[in-house]
């Protein structure tokens, strides 16, 4: 028999191919980092300028998803905050880790008329857009008229505006239809009131879209950073504006890169390795793991959002306030905070989040008390329970599933069956929009657009705000509450206003259209060498004061 081909031939070939492949793939790994590769003769710069001092390192921020538009008049999601917060500026902003204060932004001073119907702002001198043109009264007028005309995003917070006038170059006057007392706090919001450069927007207007298509991926702001480039689903690069009118400190980050990373585990690995400097939106497990990682810290702040168990008050037996009270006495708030949240939250003491203006406390607090719950159920005509409740949680929110399971065990003791169901968010939006289709109980979360707790009270308990238009997810209606809230919203006398809200709070808390579960903490992961971070209660952890942040 003829000798076969040299038996090693194929193995060698296969090995060479494999080795070659691996080598090509790994080759750059041997060099420290491709970004630091020597300058080439390539026609355009391939890398950010080589490191030359503290100012040159990009600050890499990870978050779960990217915004869908960068237009301040259209964007209305938390993912827009890192961008809108530093590229655009408002007349006024809010600052503070807790109990935020309203501070000047583009406006130097402001005045409110005695009847609460006119607000006059004096703009700071020398404020400039990124292209060098001045931020004047006309720009403010244009911004708000555009916002109202577009009628998108967070426009509802500014619906009280009747007209905006440019009194002179640096003075702008707002006239309101009603003396809405939250007008000034609403102006601090990141969604809507960021001042845009009228000339730029007009130049890019297409088919009467008020520059919407262009502004969705370009910037027309005056803030310390300007948009570098947005590679969809890859990164938003922001560059420091060296000519920023507000001036710069000694140490700054020249480039900020915000990356959407869908997997919390991936974020964690990148943070551990130092490939990223900041991460938000981590799962509790990954945040815990990072807190124990050398080189990373995970500070925790009291957040302004709440987690709530919404009750559909139009459905039996939840139309009975006594049953709803019984449910409030059946919930284990302590276990929710300690067990499900591992202590990274606080129980609530009222209908709204604490830590900001507009927080009022009722005369009592719901605590887990199954005897009291049993007694209330008996009074309501349900001795020994004997009914089933639907409970819906949104797919992906593992926390809410666990809260449901925890509650289910306690309800069993009251003779109530909790039927736990999962629902994709798209389906959920439709289900919760109408009293007939909204589940009996469902988990939800709320965060304010600006730091005034009464925004939530109006949005969630006023009967004119039933879904789908509003956020009264309980389909709650109490004429007395409606009257109190209508008055309070426009009451200029602080003492009277306080009293009105106090009364409304007491009624709502007693009638219990929901189970107020907790106020979760905001946890943010930072590499140790990241300096200058300050948490902003008003804008939650999605906002970063990048102009103060740098890497050491």
């Amino acid at each position: 028999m003829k000798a076969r081909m040299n038996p090693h031939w194929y193995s060698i070939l296969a090995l060479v191919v494999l080795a070659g492949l691996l080598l090509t793939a790994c080759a750059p790994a041997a060099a420290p980092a491709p970004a630091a590769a020597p300058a080439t003769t390539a026609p355009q710069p391939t890398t950010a300028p080589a490191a030359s001092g503290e100012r040159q390192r990009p600050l890499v921020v990870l978050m779960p998803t990217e915004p869908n538009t960068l237009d301040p008049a259209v964007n209305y999601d938390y993912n827009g905050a890192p961008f809108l917060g530093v590229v655009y500026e408002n007349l006024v902003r809010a600052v503070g880790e807790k109990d935020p204060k309203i501070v000047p932004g583009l406006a130097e001073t402001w005045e409110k008329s005695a009847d609460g119907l006119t607000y006059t702002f004096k703009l700071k001198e020398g404020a400039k857009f990124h292209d060098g043109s001045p931020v004047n009264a006309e720009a403010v007028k244009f911004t708000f008229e555009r916002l109202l005309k577009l009628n998108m995003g967070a426009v509802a917070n500014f619906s009280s505006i009747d007209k905006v006038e440019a009194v002179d170059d640096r003075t702008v006057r707002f006239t309101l239809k009603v003396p809405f007392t939250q007008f000034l706090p609403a102006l601090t919001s990141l969604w809507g009131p960021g001042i845009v450069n009228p000339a730029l927007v007009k130049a890019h207007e297409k088919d009467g879209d008020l520059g919407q298509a262009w502004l969705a991926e370009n910037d027309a702001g005056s803030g310390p950073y300007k948009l570098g480039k947005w590679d969809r689903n890859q990164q938003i690069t922001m560059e420091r504006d060296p000519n920023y009118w507000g001036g710069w400190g000694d140490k700054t980050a020249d480039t900020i890169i915000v990356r959407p990373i869908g997997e919390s585990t991936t974020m964690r690995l990148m943070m551990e390795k130092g490939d990223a400097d900041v991460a938000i939106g981590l799962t509790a497990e990954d945040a815990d793991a990072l807190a124990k990682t050398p080189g990373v810290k995970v500070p925790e702040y009291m957040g302004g959002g709440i987690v709530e168990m919404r009750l559909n008050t139009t459905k039996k037996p939840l139309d009975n306030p006594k049953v709803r009270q019984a449910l409030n006495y059946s919930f284990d708030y302590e276990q929710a905070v300690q067990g499900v949240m591992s202590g990274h939250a606080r129980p609530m003491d009222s209908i709204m989040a604490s830590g900001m203006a507009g927080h009022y406390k009722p005369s009592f607090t719901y605590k887990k008390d199954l005897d009291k719950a049993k007694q209330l159920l008996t009074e309501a005509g349900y001795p020994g329970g004997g009914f089933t409740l639907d409970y819906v949680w949104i797919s992906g929110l593992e926390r809410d599933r666990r809260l449901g399971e925890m509650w289910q065990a306690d309800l069993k003791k009251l003779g109530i069956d909790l039927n736990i169901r999962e629902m994709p968010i798209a389906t959920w939006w439709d289900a919760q929009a109408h009293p007939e289709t909204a589940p009996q109980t469902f988990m939800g979360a709320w965060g304010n657009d600006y730091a005034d707790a009464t925004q939530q009270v109006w949005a969630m308990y006023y009967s004119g705000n039933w879904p789908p238009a509003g956020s009264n997810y309980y389909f709650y209606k109490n004429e007395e509450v409606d009257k109190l809230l209508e008055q309070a919203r426009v009451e200029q006398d602080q003492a009277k206003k306080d009293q009105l809200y106090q009364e409304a709070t007491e009624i709502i808390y007693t009638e219990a259209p929901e189970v107020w579960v907790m106020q979760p903490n905001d946890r943010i992961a930072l590499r140790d060498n990241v300096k200058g971070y300050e948490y902003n209660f008003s804008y939650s952890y999605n906002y970063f004061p990048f102009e103060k942040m740098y890497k050491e």
Partner: protein
Amino acid sequence: MRTYLLRRLALLALVLVGVSLLTFTISHVIPADPARQAAGPRASDKQVQALRHKLGLDRPLPEQYVNYMAGLLRGDFGYSLTSRRPVAEDLKDHFPATIELALAAMLLSLIVGIPLGVASAVYKDSFLDHAGRVVCIAGVALPIFWLALIFQLVFYRWLNIFPSGMRIATGMMPPPAVTGLYTVDSVLARNWPALASSLWHLAMPAIVLAFASLAWIARVTRTSVLETLGHDYVRTARSKGLTERSVVYRHVLRNALIPTVTLIGLQVGALLAGVFLIEIIYSWPGIGFYTVNAVMALDFNAIMSTTLLVAVVYTLVNLVVDVIYVALDPRITYT
């Protein structure tokens, strides 16, 4: 042959109508309102209505379908509810990333899979054969998302060989877009650091994605080569005094590769499915990443477009495979 091709292309059109009808119906009967999704949770009813009207979602379903298909014929993929711009632009941004990843994976599985299969067959029951079979069984049995996470842990976190996520190093400018494939564009721009970086970023997702296809290709090639080696004409070739090399290359391989080529066509489907998992885990900004977000947000036009795109690619690849048969085996003719 020409009639055959024309018939196949006509069939492709039919397949697309079927796929579009199915996807359209399924995505529209889900009890959810995409206009509300797009307008945002706190949008007023008026805003939602306005958007619904603008997007044509207030029309009857058949009319919406006809409008959509008419737009498609004009090359208009519609408007994305999530990115708020034409879907065509989104596809232009995301599709090249997926092509690059899938091509790299396919290339890897061919370059490694076929020689591995041939070698396993020629040296049946040798150490190489046993080792190859272990790799194959692992590749076929291990779920791709698990493999992706393990690779990330081992090669990114522990060994620090590959980066995780993204197509190019942080702070590095991608090469000017010509094809949209970073590796190819870097070569065109003679930008070697960018080429190195994009290859380095491509490696891990491509290897993981290639693993299953590689295993299948090696397995089928091995079986097929073994079977062909037993044929009479191989014995004849050997007895003619041909070298073993020429027997394997000229007589065995060509005949044995037909099942492998069929498999390649099918594996393109598997690769495209795998891309959805891989892209999420490695934050690879391709259509997998894009479609998962679109599905979550019930972004009809985006879902439709990516589904159709995947269907077109799959059908075309299989058509090409059928044509390759002819080149491999002159006995096969199409009429």
